[in-house]
């Protein structure tokens, strides 16, 4: 067990865990931030996506020992960001979700896309969102919600 200091959603947090523990499980069980989800554990589905040092990151893959002093933003904190709030609003207004389990990861990925490309083309949306899995099949509404958030933020 090792003690790690983390900045999560703007707050300093301290955890004592095995250094191999993925950031995902530190968030979910160490800090009770369960909005970030476990879908596969190998980075294939994106349900665990957070922003680490401002980069959309699959937190199931990153052992806490490699986080360093990079700040973490999760779905619980992204609403404080103007783009994050816009994406969440667009998601609600488009009624994207069904079971909702993948949507934290979808939203975090969409925010990263729009921060880098505020007016993405359809192809850019497809490439950026194309690695985040949804078994309920909300993909058409995800595309629409990304477009909506983009136009709201113009």
């Amino acid at each position, binding site marked *: *067990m090792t003690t790690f200091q983390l900045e999560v959603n703007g707050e300093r947090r301290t955890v004592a*865990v*095995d250094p*191999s*523990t*993925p950031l995902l*499980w530190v968030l*979910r*069980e160490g800090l*009770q*931030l*369960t*909005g*970030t*989800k*476990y*879908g*596969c*554990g*190998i980075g*294939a*589905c994106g*349900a665990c996506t957070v922003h680490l040092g401002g980069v959309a990151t699959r937190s199931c893959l990153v052992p806490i020992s490699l986080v360093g002093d990079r700040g973490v933003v*999760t*779905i*619980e904190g992204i*609403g404080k960001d103007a783009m994050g709030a816009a994406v*969440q609003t667009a*998601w*609600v207004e488009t*009624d*994207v*979700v*069904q*079971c*909702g*389990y*993948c*949507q*934290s990861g979808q*939203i975090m990925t969409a925010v990263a896309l729009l921060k880098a490309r505020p007016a993405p083309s359809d192809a850019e949306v*497809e490439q950026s*969102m*194309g*690695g*985040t*899995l*949804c*078994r*309920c*099949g*909300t*993909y*058409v*509404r*995800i*595309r629409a919600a990304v477009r909506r958030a983009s136009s709201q933020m113009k």
Partner: protein
Amino acid sequence: MRRLIDAIPARGMSRRGFLRRSAAAAGGLMVALYLERAAGAAGNAAPAAPAAPPDAFVRIGADGKITIVVNRVEVGQGVHTALPMILADELDADWSAVTAELAPVADVYKDPVLGLQMVGGSSSIANSFTQYRELGAKTRAMLVAAAAARWRVPPGRCRTENSVVYGPDGQSARYGELASDAARRPLPAKVQLKQPSELRIIGRRVPRLDGRAKCDGSQKFGLDLALPGMKTALIARPPVFGGTVKSFDDKAARAVAGVLDVFEVPLVHGRGVAVVADGFWPAKLARARLAIEWDVASVEHADTDAILASYQARAQRPGTVALAAGDASAIDKLERDRTIVAEYAFPFLAHAPMEPLNATVRFDGDRAEAWIASSGATMDQAAIAEVLGVAPAKVTCHVVFGGGSFGRRGPLDCHLAREAAALAKHRPGTSIKLVWTREDDIQGGYYRPMFVHRVQVGIGAEGMPAAWRHVIVGQSFMKDTGLPFEPFLVKDGVDALVVEGTVNHPYTIPNIHVSVDHTKVNVPVLSWRSIGYTHNTFVVETLIDELAARAKVDPIAYRLRLFRPDVPRFISSMKLLDDKTAAWRAALPAGHALGVACGMYNRSAIACAVEVSIEHGKPRIHRATAAVDCGIAVNPMTIEAQVHSGFVFGLTQLVPGGAITIKDGIVQQRNFESFTPPYLADAPLEIDVHIVPSTEEPTGMGETPVPVIAPAVVNALAALTGKRYRTLPLVTPL
């Protein structure tokens, strides 16, 4: 062999349809069967669902907030919003004041038709429609009675709107003010329900009640549960289904910090070794360090290559007859060039819901508490009770939100609940959350079975099918299982869930013979969203398409000509599709082709048209248009979402990663990298949904769209490449 047909409604046959007829005929026998098996008690059949006091379903606070209790799990299908809409409409509630919650397991929450608290057969709205309307109407009547008593006016002179009762002389009172008085009123025995023109919420586009929480991380699922002192458990499972533990060395596992216990545990299929730890990660590390010697010598080692060869051989001969009409030998009398012979092969499929299976149970000696996103809640409660040796009523069973199901969360052997209960029994007083990893999920069985079909179609006048001989080979879900639903679903040796989609096809085919060869394989199988239709509709709709193409008739026109007159919803949905797609069908760009398919589930019909091209060797679905006839659409947004959902889910059958293969008993896939479901680029770019206007009772949409997308897409591919695709999944590049 017509007896089977008498027992099956020729149209809209479904598991749910069976159960409804069976439950009515048997007078609640099904419920009694299950409870007898669970508690060992003999007794009279209990009523399917006791007359429900509204307060079990709706609570109105003094502040006017209305909480509506939903009698089944929410796994994305939208009941958490649609059922409250139904009640709120008859209640004349202010919708903005409504929230919903999921009911725990209790008799009062049993599905009124099925007699169990459960989700299945796309029947939630259909079965609880009238129930929730009556609950809303009764509650309204009690509020009106309370107001009328207060004002000393006849109740009949009062009216309600938007959570307010209005009296004849300008009086008004909000529901919140009246609630506690109303609760003391007697429950009305009968109520009048609204006329269709009076509906204010049913039929409106209403955004989901759980939408916001699912976008800000606050929605809790089963896997998110955190209780004081809770521990997490993983189970090491045998590499071959049914294997047992010869011995295990847990020294390295126990050395992982945070591990509390390691012990052998019974499974429904075989035995495993459980690790209990402080959290998911130490449990996972410890499980990986277990050294287990498995005994797999005495169980069958399934092999999908061998199964395929065996099924293909067996398909050459007829099996047990499921449907026989006309002249069984008509097909043999036709010329070779007037006959199509087609063989189809379908793989095992995993459901792979986004939230892996999990269940939490705490055993306190004479009682227990459980949390599970269960599609079969009554049965799971009874299974937990059986494992723990207590009465079901002593198990407080909370139904939590689930991250998708598609059939995976309602296995009739209640294996998840039984495993979780076995762990809880080992450590009384501790809440134990059992988690299946994604690898456990992909490799853990309970798949859509493999099937092979062999069909001979005789082409008659004007290219219409004159004869149809169809052999289906594959596992039965129910036959010889001894499970409670078996007598209702297996008749004369035929499992209805295997043949649905063929025996109840909508077409005029004068000579038709469908038979089935149920196989036994050591692979656990389970209903996969739309069950028998997943393969049967694919076969039927691709063959119908081939007939239409040979006859050089448009696929929509061909079907409209071929439908029997007694399939009104097939006709109405196909006509609506024709109308809504006429413009784009007439303007297909070069390299784009049309594909059409239709189907029915639980009396809801769907007609689907897709526009497909081939990009980088893969199908690119530019658009999918659906026309559905499903009775009244309680929430058109839910209907549309379920069409989107069913289409994308149905594409699991086509995408190259969509197969589970097994070699010498070992599942070859591990995770999403090897069992690969559809991602965003695999889905249609656009989907438009059109609903046939109706005032008939709602008949559901959860599974209806799933079976039609794959045949529609391959019918388009056939137009592009000239090839017919009869082995799934597709092999790319095309």
